[in-house]
């Protein structure tokens, strides 16, 4: 694979990782691991 293709692949992966991070943050907001009383 040439250098520019590698760069493209890297950029794409970084975007996907960023998207996954946002998704996980959203999911964590919907289901906080602990409630106000500290229980799950």
């Amino acid at each position, binding site marked *: 694979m040439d250098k520019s293709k590698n760069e493209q692949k890297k950029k794409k992966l970084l975007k996907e990782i960023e998207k*996954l991070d946002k998704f996980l943050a959203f999911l964590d907001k919907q*289901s906080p691991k602990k409630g106000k009383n500290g229980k799950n």
Partner: protein
Amino acid sequence: MARINTETEARFVDELRGLQTPFSSRAEAAEAFETNGAEHLSVDELERVKLEKILQVLRHPVLDHLIDKGKITFAMIKPHADEGKGLSNNDDEAAMGLIREIGEERAVFQLPFKFTKRDVERFYGPHKNEFEARKVKKPTDNERTVWDQIMHYYPSGPVTFLLVYVPEGSAVEWLTDITGPTLPKKEDPDSIRKRHGAKLPNNYVHRSSSIPEVKREVDVLANIIEKSIAGRTL
């Protein structure tokens, strides 16, 4: 248990659909294993990071909740999909044909992968005694029991892991109905397995048998991915 609303459910399913898993085909997944031998995946650092995050999604309470509600079940397109009657001679195209029959809009997560013998033990472990007690009808040198057959068959080609979303619920039952019994008989209604001439061990589609099994199999899948990437060779 997580409590989620319909908006969260819709977004979860949409995000699952949009996930780009490391291998775009079963052939690619098989190649990644063959490069590095039987046990470890060949993926680069960023793919590994991405897979770790996909693991977090697979282990997230929201997925657990949707499984509990009967909206998501687990399935797997077995090795050698191309052996199916009426399916393409190309394994990847045949697997896609089977996924289309389940419904592309329902198969919200797809991950081509390849089982090692150790993975098969993890996946079918709870049924080992039962399978070891059953003899195969036409034994070969390597296959005296159903367990031997399974251990020989699964690592012989790539599989595709699937999460199947059924918005109206009863996902396990729905998938059981459309895939059909383990080995359909003449009098059985039309099903994916019947249509393509299911035989053992290849009846084309594995599906979880109950909600606890969905949870166990998703957990095994996550553990298999985790172990594969932990021991990777860059």
